């Protein structure tokens, strides 16, 4: 139940994109059509879901003072986390290139850029800051990835519809995407105000 709570909270209340504004670049650039957004969303769920437990193990057994090494290596946290993320993304890139070349081409530069998607490093850092245990970090990773996936599908769907509306030509496309994200962010701020502690 506790794990389910963390999952829902990570996906909706503390949505990485719309509440914390992490991972914005790929969110805006790849949300032109629902189909590519779907592919990138799945890749992000996968990378978040895999890197979070690996980084938890690294943080617990290599970097912390209580681990087998017995020394506080936390100054290496950034480099090790990023290295894990980079190798996972490299793996995803190879798989997508083999399985679906068309998706590979439409994602273009934003596939390698999942590495520097702040949502993923940010997720790992949140995990450290909130002191989750192993299963909680898995739930948080999957929930965060699912929230990111939902958000990018939502904005891609809106952007597909808005193509039929009479937007000023200069604002079409990217400009409108920024303003839409801002509005969605304001809407999600109301969810951020729901504090579970207030109902207990």
């Amino acid at each position: 139940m506790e794990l389910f709570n963390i999952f829902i909270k990570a996906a909706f209340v503390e949505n990485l994109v719309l509440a914390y504004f992490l991972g914005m670049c790929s969110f805006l650039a790849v949300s032109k059509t629902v189909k590519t957004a779907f592919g990138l969303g799945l890749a992000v769920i996968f990378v978040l879901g895999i890197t979070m437990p690996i980084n938890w193990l690294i943080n617990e057994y290599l970097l912390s003072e209580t681990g087998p090494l017995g020394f506080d290596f936390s100054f290496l946290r950034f480099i090790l986390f990023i290295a894990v993320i980079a190798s996972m993304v490299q793996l995803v890139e190879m798989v997508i290139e083999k399985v679906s070349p068309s998706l590979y081409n439409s994602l273009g530069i934003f596939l390698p850029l999942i590495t520097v998607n702040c949502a993923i490093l940010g997720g790992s850092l949140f995990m450290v800051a909130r002191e989750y245990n192993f299963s909680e970090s898995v739930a948080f990773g999957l929930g965060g990835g699912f929230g990111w996936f939902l958000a990018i599908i939502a904005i891609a769907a809106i952007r597909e519809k808005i193509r039929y509306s009479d937007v000023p030509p200069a604002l079409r496309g990217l400009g409108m995407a920024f303003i839409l994200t801002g509005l969605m962010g304001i809407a999600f701020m109301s969810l951020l105000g729901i504090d579970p502690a207030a109902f207990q």
Partner: protein
Amino acid sequence: MAEVKTAPAIQEKEPLFGKKEKKLITDPLTDNNPITIQVLGICSALAVTSLVLPSVVISVAVVFVCAFSSLFTSLLRTRIPKSIRMIVQLVIIATLVTIVEMVLKYFSYPVYRQLTIYIGLIITNCIVMGRLEAFAMANKPWRSFLDGIGNGLGYGLILVGIALIRELFGKGSLFAGSAAEMKIIGASPDYIINTMAEGSWFGWYSNNNLMVLPVAAMFIIGIFIWIQRSRNPDLVDIS
């Protein structure tokens, strides 16, 4: 059959700073801006721009990191195997960011304290790795270096632009935290325009709290894009 002697191909000498090189610096400032056109580096543009001073510091740091990571990646580009290129790129970036962090800590500790997290986040600033992937992996070192500087400057231009608007309307001051702090408008005699003063025309004014939130940066970037594309219709998305 007589051998045909071919004249040795005349090596075209590339000027050190010709038209193409100049274009590499000026293009990212306007028509190929990293934030408004390439959509790179948005996260930090939302996070640090509530005040002008941190935006300036971050922009300078990004120019440095972008320029030198492009230079080093370009020098190594033929030797990096494709399958581990991201890790190599990130190691270069992370090293440079660590240097920036140490230099800032040494020269200006208060600013460092204010910016700790954001300096670390330059590693995940997509603009740096984006330019490495898109340009430095396929071009010569000098060109890549200039491209890095140009993109860093283009990024800084937008960042400082957003920060000026957000700080003025959100907090009523400019350059807060630096020696050149200016208090423009607010409800005390410290400010240039004192809204509480008797007979003031600005009694109705109060700071806009929306401007302090990251959401405001989204709207401001949206409006920047609107202005830029109205002035230059070639940039409009057709899709």
